[in-house]
């Protein structure tokens, strides 16, 4: 018994002073994420207010209960049933109001003039249509060494390679786009590129030259990225101002 006489606190750590981490303890990643830049500033503001609330709570004699969620039955179940009924109702309503036409049965012996994948794969289909920018390595007889089809598949390799690299380049410490304008711009460029590639896949729908469409496919993402970067960079000051204003409105200086 090495415990001193004046303390009545029960020691559960064996007297070593080493306490196992609980949910409140930030782990290594969280410490690292909050150690730099605007995300650190944000964290410090909210942490300071949280700490002040905690002190106030400990001073008061009001008994708090921890409510972690609502019970599955009946609360969650009835809510989910209501949402499900709403969407099923919309589906039935639309199906009844605009009944689908019954066309001729598909003829498996003839390929349609326009073939397209489902809409969410248009970007991938667009990558297969980059023929004009593929390098033309021609040898004897003018036959291409590497076919357009090969370049189309290789373009997928480039896209997936960049996607796989992103988590290694940016750890995702920002909670809001304004905290990291550059990476937000990269994300916006990616989203816009997926849309422009999809537009390239359905090129017949656009009433202008294919060359222009191909140019837009790769310039629009860059333009969108520059715009995003400029806007977010401009918003940073206002964001910090708002944080400060909110903090001092809730807790006016004494």
């Amino acid at each position, binding site marked *: 018994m090495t415990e001193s006489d004046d303390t009545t606190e029960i020691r559960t750590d064996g007297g070593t002073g080493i306490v196992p981490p609980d949910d409140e303890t930030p782990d290594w990643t969280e410490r690292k994420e909050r150690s730099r830049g605007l995300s650190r500033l944000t964290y410090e503001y909210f942490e300071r207010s949280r700490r002040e609330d905690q002190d106030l709570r400990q001073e008061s004699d009001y008994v708090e209960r921890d409510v972690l969620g609502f019970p599955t039955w009946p609360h969650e179940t009835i809510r989910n049933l209501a949402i499900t009924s709403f969407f099923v109702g919309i589906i039935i309503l*639309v199906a009844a*109001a*605009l009944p*689908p*036409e019954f*066309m001729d049965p598909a003829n498996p012996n003839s390929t349609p003039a326009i073939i397209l994948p489902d809409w969410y794969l248009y970007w991938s289909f667009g990558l297969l249509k980059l023929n004009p920018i593929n390098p033309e390595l021609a040898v004897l007889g003018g036959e291409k060494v590497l076919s357009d089809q090969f370049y189309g598949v290789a373009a997928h390799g480039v896209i997936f390679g960049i996607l796989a690299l992103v988590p290694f380049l940016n750890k995702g410490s920002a909670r809001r786009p304004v905290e990291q304008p550059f990476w937000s711009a990269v994300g916006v460029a990616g989203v816009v590129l997926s849309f422009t590639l999809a537009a390239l896949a359905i090129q017949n*729908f656009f009433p202008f030259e294919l060359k222009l469409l191909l140019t837009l496919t790769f310039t629009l993402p860059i333009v969108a990225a520059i715009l995003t970067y400029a806007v977010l960079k401009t918003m940073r000051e206002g964001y910090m101002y708002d944080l400060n204003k909110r903090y001092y409105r809730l807790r006016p200086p004494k």
Partner: protein
Amino acid sequence: MADEFMKGFAISMVGALGWFFFAGWYRTPSFEQIQQLTVEPPEPNGIYDAVAIFASDLFFWLMVLGPLTFWVIIPALRELRRSRADASN
């Protein structure tokens, strides 16, 4: 502000659904062709057709103007009023 977003969004969705129905009935000769919901409507056969064709326009503009009002015009007016109040103080 979140309420203003929800109002505009709800109005837009109601307008979109109504436009989809009426334009699907009167402005879509076939769902297999490229131009849908925007084709010129046929000459109305009766009062019901005329009302429905008018309703397709009505719902379309509800879909466009509803969110424009709640997301752009009302916040802009509010900001304008606030900046005026700040300037006069």
